């Protein structure tokens, strides 16, 4: 009886003696994730830097966690475009750091589909700093996306990032708004089907999907569809400042003939 009691008590003791802010603690990761999502919604550099630093600290404390490396990479992908406008050199360094985190995550878990996708997205950002590497980076991006889709065809963020990449890619290279919409629609279908059960699992991107579908629709000169999609994105994330304060007002102004979308 005593032995059974000890077996029962030991895990409780171990659990309770642990720090309340352990990196592996789903609460810490979820809290960092909320901070990142809030920063993305605000669309400002400082909160993004802060959120990235938070993940960076969690990852440094637990370098064996592929998930934390992945989150640093996601935060990097969010931060670099804004940082680039302020400090291009630092942005390039951060982008490389994000790629290093992807490699670290993939070394720990080669089957991490979402990580292959975010790696491809960061490689796409790297092209802004190293355009001379287009020939090799372009192929590497395709390869990473291909692997992400092969590993998990139901990973919506892989389709989202692939769609964004396609929107920025010239049509002769298989890009353009039509190609982007196909990929983004696939992401949207998966997002609409349901949310992840695990609170620490990546759950971002639904609002981004609708936002970028709107951007792709706009690129196809379909402003009505773009407005609908922006509104849908706001339904998913009512706090999204870029849509609420910039994209939607500009689109409405353009539709009423007072500006360009």
């Amino acid at each position, binding site marked *: 009886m005593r032995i059974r*009691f000890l077996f*029962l*008590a030991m895990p*409780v*003791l171990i*659990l*309770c*003696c*642990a*720090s*309340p*802010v*352990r*990196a*592996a603690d789903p609460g810490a990761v979820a809290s960092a994730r909320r901070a990142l999502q809030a920063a993305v919604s605000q669309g400002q550099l*400082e909160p993004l*830097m*802060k959120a*990235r*630093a*938070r993940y*960076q*600290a*969690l*990852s*440094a*404390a*637990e*370098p064996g966690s592929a998930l934390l490396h992945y989150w640093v990479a996601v935060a990097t992908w969010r931060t670099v475009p804004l940082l680039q406008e302020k400090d*291009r050199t*630092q942005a390039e*360094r*951060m982008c490389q*750091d994000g790629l290093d985190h992807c490699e670290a995550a993939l*070394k720990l878990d*080669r089957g991490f589909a979402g990580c292959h996708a975010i790696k491809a997205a960061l490689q796409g950002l790297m092209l802004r700093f190293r355009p*001379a*590497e*287009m*020939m*090799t980076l*372009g*192929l*590497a991006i*395709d*390869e990473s996306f291909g692997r992400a889709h092969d590993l998990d065809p139901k990973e919506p963020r892989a389709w989202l990032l692939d769609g964004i990449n396609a929107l920025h*890619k*010239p*049509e*002769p*290279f*298989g890009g353009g708004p039509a*190609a982007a919409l196909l990929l983004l629609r696939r992401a949207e279908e998966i997002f609409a089907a349901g949310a992840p059960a695990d609170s620490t699992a990546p759950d971002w991107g639904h609002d981004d999907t609708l936002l970028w579908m709107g951007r792709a629709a706009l690129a196809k000169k379909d402003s009505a569809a773009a407005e609908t999609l922006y509104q849908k994105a706001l339904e998913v994330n009512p706090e999204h400042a870029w849509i609420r304060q910039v994209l939607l007002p500009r689109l409405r102004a353009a539709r009423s003939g007072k500006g360009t979308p």
Partner: protein
Amino acid sequence: MTRILPLVGLLLVALSATARAIEVTGTVTDRAGRPIEYASIAVPALKLGAATDESGRFRLQLPPGLAILQVSQMGYERARLEVRVAPGMTPLRIALNDQPIELSEVTVSASSFGKTGKAEGPVLSRRDVLMTPGGAADVFQSLRALPGINAPADGAAVYVRGGPPEESVIRLDGCDIGHPYHYERASGGLFGSLDPYMVRSAFFSSGGFSAKYGGAVSGVLDIEMEDPRDLRTATLGANLAGFSASGTAPLVRGRLSGSASLRLSVPDLLFRLYGSSNDYETAPVSRDGTARMLWRYSPTGRATLMWLASGDQVRVRARYLNVEDRYADHMRTDFGALRFEDAFAGRLALHGQLSVQGYGSGWSFGPVDATQLERALQGSLDALWSLTPRHELALGTVWRRRDTGIRGTFPADSTDFSPGAPTRRYDTHPVLDAAGFYLEDKLRLGGPFYATLGARLDRLSTSGVWTCDPRAALAWRVDDHQTVRLATGRYHQPAAARFLDPLYGNPRLEPLEARHVIAGYEWKSEYGNVRLEAYRKDYRHLVRVDPVTWYAGDGRGYARGVDAFVQGTHRWLSGWVSYGWLDTRRHELDDPRLLPTAYGVEHTLTLVALYQASSRTNLGAHYAHGSGQPYTPVVGRVWDGVRGIWRPVFGENHSALIPPYHRLDLRVTRLFTPPRVLGLRPSSRCVGYIEGLNVLGIRNVLEYEWNTDFTERSARESYFARRMLVAGFMLTW
């Protein structure tokens, strides 16, 4: 109930233990006391982490006792500190050191012109090779657009600052390679035998280069092959002059990958369309193939095995002095290299190379009927030890064996090639063994001063002498945009094999020597790059004709000049201008005076402009100008009654100039979406191009020829003397 009570008690004990955690606070600053925002503070042993706020402050809950904190932020050196956590402890103050600018970001080596802004990055990327108009998508032809290359006419060979091609070493994945050209006897080579799709980048230095490069007194071209990166790709290309196919594939994902390429060049169609400045009996044909395997045997280690085979043949009617005859030439080269690279403890990188090359060529013209067979074997080991981010030590050793056999019949009199001319049998087989060692220290001297100090020791088996080459380069990083460089050094290379024959040569010839002094200024930003460089190169031990020993190493010479390079990008327009002024003279072979050399082009100017007209269309223009190349004119003739032929009377050596060289090439490149058939990926791309070569139709002169009685001079035109329109495509999927 009685059973649950102890459990609850334990839980309370545990919770109280947690409550005993102590709050550790602190500030992270730089050395000047300024707060560092968004730095991360990690306690890996406890899997705890926190980040600083905008004021550099942080807080952590830690249990009492010893804790190891790791503090990091980009741009600063990572700090690791031990903290004894106890109640009432004072806030921590952690100062991070600035991360010094990494040595690799500061160019210390002189004369390596980069176009990317990061001057020590690749001088030419593969994209440059493929997109530069007139470069014919050839690594060597594209190099002509950079300063320091004073190539006469259309040839691809690297004539560096007054030095002929044999004064430069060409390396492929760290191994020396000889004869990497097609049609080598035409201006030293017309095209390279490397498929640009297999090349990642090419580093080129026209002087003041590192101690790790031996066996060259003028320049270095260091080519890195592309890493297949686990990608499955295929590229097919064709144009009016030939076909190419290349591909990469992972064989064992993440471990073993391979790449291969095949090229065939048959310009028959081109000649039919536009004619040719030469009278070919059959159109020249060249082919080459490359295969490369990459094995990643550990997270840090990899080994590569490469094989390159190339060959060409040409048959053309030619005229030289007093004879017109068929000139026939064929060449075949095979090159294999095994290389391994590994890193140890994140600080020591090791590279080992082993290469073997076989080269055979044969040529005949008039009384000449000769073959040349070469076998080269090389092994080398290089180590790079990164002591700190501001201090690197490089050392290595190399051993080479070159076995050159030249045999055949040559005219006994260099002015008589006519039928029945007296000939001489030549059969030489010098074997050259060379061993070398180098040590180089690359360091930050302090403040904005960076230096590379090195030396190499080499021993040649033929002369039996040791040579010692100290080399030094200093870079002063004035600010983020400007760098001033000074470089000096001594360089040696063995004399050419044809001078080392035991019977008709001097196997004890000393190695050639050159001393470089270079001063340069660079300004760079993300919008452009400006480099100015002044240099002087003094030669010693050049080969001279000697009445007793056939050849002696008592010649001398110099090359001095200025190179300027301005590159810029503005929105959709980019391009560069390069200009070189060169004054070179040599006292060598049979002339007792210091004279201009046959390959010393005084002024060279290149303008390249690339305009992205739309997301699909690129326009490019390339203008090249070279002032005339010196040559030795025929100023008279004498009748040889014994042989019954006219013989030429030559003027002063290199006393006349071929007219200036001009050429303008234009190119339109358009991207197409290939049809979605045959399972092509959506990202497949097709690049179509139309290139106008020598669009102004300028009949540039390659050399002068005379009729058999030396009464008429005619100009032999350069290979691209006709206006040509070449169309082609490359499909990658």
